[in-house]
């Protein structure tokens, strides 16, 4: 195996058991049905699919929130023992996650400085003054300032909160960052700023991204590789250009067709069609 592989999944599966009732038999939901891929250091893999296709479950397994039912997870070349209690703090530091909704993922009663300092306080024995310096440094890195240190989450806009969530994930100097729909709750103009920030941070820290999204225009912009999931299976995986220029699977084509087109040509075509429909 080459040295450059950051993340490798080998036939990862996750089943959820739905408990049965008096008259209802027990049911097993196969959320992820055997997914394998390799991701190189410093690259971005985009995982695309509709809600309920298992992409978030996959993200939870990569970040050790959920335990895979079967399969192997290799990070930085070493196999991770995902059983509860067997994870080393070292391993946890390597992988961090940014959640979808910046309104829900920050504690409303915690100041921003404490939000950023908490991972350090838990995982290291760094003195408070150093934690403070690190937090301030990270705030400037993500485009906020030291004056925001003592504020509460409700005083920030959606884009700023997402920046804070990204800053929190970066506090432990992770190598792999899982982004679970980081821009889908944001406006177009703010979305552009956050995407630029993510690109800058990737260059600066040499981060590897697993980027989960259902917005294909964002994926096309940010991803190096694209994986399309459908009902718990990876139906297509390739470089961005391969997938976008020549989609193999039926579902990928449906997805492309469903994406709104904002170029002048397709608007003109639509208006022509509507006029023709009216005349008829």
């Amino acid at each position, binding site marked *: 195996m080459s040295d450059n592989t950051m993340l490798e999944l080998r036939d990862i599966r996750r089943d959820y058991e739905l408990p049965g009732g008096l008259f209802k038999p027990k049911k097993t939901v196969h959320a992820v049905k055997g997914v394998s891929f390799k991701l190189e250091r410093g690259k971005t893999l985009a995982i695309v699919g509709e809600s309920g296709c298992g992409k978030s479950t996959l993200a939870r397994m990569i970040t050790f929130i959920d335990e895979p039912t079967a399969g192997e997870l290799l990070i930085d070349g070493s196999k991770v023992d995902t059983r509860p209690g067997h994870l080393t703090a070292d391993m946890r530091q390597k992988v961090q996650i940014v959640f979808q909704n910046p309104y829900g993922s920050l504690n409303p009663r915690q100041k921003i400085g404490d939000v950023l300092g908490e991972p350090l306080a838990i995982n290291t024995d760094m003195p408070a003054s150093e934690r403070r310096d690190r937090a301030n440094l990270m705030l400037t890195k993500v485009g906020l300032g030291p004056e925001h240190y003592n504020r509460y989450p409700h005083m920030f806009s959606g884009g700023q909160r997402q920046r804070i969530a990204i800053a929190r994930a970066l506090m432990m100097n992770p190598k792999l960052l899982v982004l679970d729909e980081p821009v889908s709750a944001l406006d177009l103009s703010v979305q*552009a700023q956050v995407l630029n920030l993510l690109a800058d941070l990737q260059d600066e820290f040499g981060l590897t991204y697993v980027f989960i999204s259902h917005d294909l225009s964002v994926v*096309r*912009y940010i991803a190096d590789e694209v994986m399309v999931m459908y009902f718990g299976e990876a139906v297509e995986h390739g470089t961005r250009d391969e997938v976008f220029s020549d989609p193999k699977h039926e579902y990928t084509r449906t997805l492309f067709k*469903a*994406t709104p*087109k904002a170029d*002048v040509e397709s608007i003109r075509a639509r208006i022509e069609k509507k006029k023709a429909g009216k005349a008829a």
Partner: protein
Amino acid sequence: MALLQIDNLTVQFETSTGWFKAVDGVSLSVEKGEVLAIVGESGSGKSVAMLAVMGLLPWTAKITADRMLFEGRDIQKISATERRALIGKDIAMIFQEPVASLNPCFTVGFQIEEVLRIHLGLARQARRARAIELFKLVGLPNPEERLGSFPHQMSGGQCQRVMIAIAIACDPKLLIADEPTTALDVTIQKQILDLIMDLQVRTGMGLIMITHDMGVVAETADRVVVQYKGKKMEEADVLSLFENPKSNYTKALLAALPENATGDRLTTVSDFFDGNPEPAPSAGMNGVNA
């Protein structure tokens, strides 16, 4: 005669630092059978303007307008009873979050039949039949069974379909769709947009589409109003807006689309102006720096 005509609408809320203008001198009109899109980021006052038209803002909001006409009838000064007869029937609205805007305590069948009972006064069996017909129209499978479901038993896309069914239950003349697809997946978004557009063509109603997604605008609108911080930046038909945007805010919005990225970086709105957008000259007298 325009279906809905609003002149110089201003909505203000009182805050601890004085009156805040959420909507500042916006004029717009919709013709019968026309699709008007209102675009803007969150906080640009696009939803508030439409809530003011519907009369759904709390009494603390101060609403002033030179004119607010629906089919030539002034809807500013009408009584609460008259308004109740009008909204939900002739003017209907699809709200932003489908799951949150349905009542969790009642079945969706009860909620749609309630509209039919109050506005159309249909008898029980006629209501039932019409509700099933509407559910079929919006593409919900097994409509008879679905009538007995509670909102939490359905997915986001299904709840949105129920909302659309309720909105079109009385064949409204004007439908206001407030970000109808924001919470949904692209594939479901496509289905919902197709459904709304199909209904619009078939019934010939006026449609106001509130959105922040330029893709949705490109797929649906005839005419577009761009709003920023409560002010109208630009009004144009959809083709000329995308081909030749006049206001620098519109240009910034279009440049921020990921598919329009030039090189490595996305252009952000602040690259274009420093919080001082200029409205297009055609946006009229109610622009910036009045």
